[in-house]
């Protein structure tokens, strides 16, 4: 099978929370291996899209979804889809770092453990931990604190750990919901650098409120408004020559 160009494609995606329609006919295409940022004012449906792509939204009983979401050419809302596998291939990073109340080491191994049976040899476990932590540029900082509780790390370290724990199960897509909004400017820069580092290996879809962040840290940009996809273009094009008036107004800070 040839590698698909698009990692995520939605087709006429509609979503209702009860009677409120949060997404209206969204057709989006996220290119594989790139960083795409989702921008738009609060309540425009950015986070809802993100949460639909690893099917975490369904946990709320009153959500109804129609349309298709294809991840690497497979409709994840189709039949014979195991949600656990969807979530394995589509990892998610939250606004507030949420490491589990376990040791740093066990946090990294958690995902691996739930997706693999049998006992994990110590040597293999060590390799997994080191590799994942190296990938998120955290290894040198925490290698002496692997058995400490992850909740004692700094917020920046916690957020990096939250990214690291997704990697051992080899996801293809990383969804990030304002991953830097709980961090100070320095930590934000560090995490952005990391995200840029992961580009290519993973397809990254990142929701952000921070226009400057979208501009400096993404390849493509999607602007949403009131549940609709308004514009999707290369980041430099969107910020220099937005094709829609709504986009221009938002980018210039006329609303938001």
């Amino acid at each position, binding site marked *: 099978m040839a590698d698909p160009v698009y990692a995520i494609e939605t087709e006429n995606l509609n979503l209702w929370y009860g009677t409120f329609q949060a997404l209206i006919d969204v057709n989006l295409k996220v290119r594989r291996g790139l960083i795409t940022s989702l921008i738009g004012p609060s309540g425009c449906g950015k986070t809802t899209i993100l949460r639909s792509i690893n099917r975490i939204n369904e946990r709320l009983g009153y959500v109804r979804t129609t349309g298709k979401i294809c991840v690497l050419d497979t409709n994840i809302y189709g039949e014979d889809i195991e949600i656990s596998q969807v979530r394995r291939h589509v990892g998610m990073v939250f606004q507030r770092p949420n*490491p589990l*109340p376990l040791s740093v080491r066990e946090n990294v191994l*958690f995902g691996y453990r739930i997706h693999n049976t049998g006992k994990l040899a110590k040597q293999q476990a060590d390799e997994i931990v080191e590799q994942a932590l190296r990938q998120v540029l955290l290894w040198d900082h925490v290698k002496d604190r692997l058995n400490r509780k992850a909740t004692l790390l700094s917020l920046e370290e916690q957020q990096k750990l939250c990214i690291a*724990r997704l990697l051992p199960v080899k996801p293809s897509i990383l969804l990030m919901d304002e991953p830097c909004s709980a961090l100070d400017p320095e930590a934000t820069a560090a995490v952005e650098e990391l995200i840029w580092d992961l580009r290519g290996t993973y397809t990254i879809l990142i929701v952000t409120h921070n226009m400057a962040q979208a501009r400096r840290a993404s390849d493509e940009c999607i602007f949403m408004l009131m549940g609709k996809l308004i514009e999707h273009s290369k980041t430099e094009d969107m910020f220099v020559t937005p094709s829609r008036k709504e986009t221009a107004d938002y980018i210039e800070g006329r609303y938001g």
Partner: protein
Amino acid sequence: MTFEATELNIRNKKMEKLFRILFLMMTLLLILPVLIIICLLLAEGHEALSVDFFLTAPQNGMTAGGIFPALVGTLWLVAIALLVSVPLGVAAALYLSEYAPDNWLTRIINLAIVNLAGVPSIVHALFGVGAFVLFFGFGTSILAASFTLAIMTLPVVIVSTRESLQAVPLAFREACWNMGATRWQTIRHVVLPNSISGILTGIILEVSRSVGETAPIMFTGAAFFLPFLPQSVFDQTMALSLHLFVISTQVPGVPEHLPFGVALVLIGIVLLLNSISIAFRMYLRGKKKW
């Protein structure tokens, strides 16, 4: 510019003081009965206490001797009640907290649990007679009495366990689910390890409560007087709480220090268990960080 107190300020200050003292008095008034009870029991009952008191059976028509069979009986009753109510209660709490969708059925179940907690203990006793003694054919026995105690304490276990589970932040669960963990994996690896202290505390409190219960066991398995220890769960047994009731109201010629001594032991067990649970909670809370 003057910052002197006006008349209104002075009046407000007086009222402030008045109410503070009033509420303080009310609070002290609440502690007073507890203090009086404990002091009175210590004063009147201390002479009954001795090693023999704990290790011998009542003698001379229960006017002398100790409480050994009653103490052992209470242990039996509480232990078996725990064996029944803890698995049931924790399982129910796990379902309600971790699996149950928020629909009308769940709400009715929650309502039922709250109401079950409010059922008078004598009603539980009669239910125990009907259900365990007669219908299931346990007879008046430790088993029947323990089951009745278990049913009575079940709502407490469920509510306290559920509260402990709910105290684990939702963010941890979301983190697990997002990695593809099932509900059970989430419970086993994250929710339970972080709520076990609260659950155990609730269970200890439940024990301390069932130690003192009299009504639910008096028709179902606790005996007036048995000089020997129960041999199996189908035997009747003496129990501390019922023994206290019997020697203070039903038996003539009991020396006064004896019921006070029994009451002292009973309240001692309860206070001890409560202190353990508090100490335990403080210890584990000190260790917990998130």
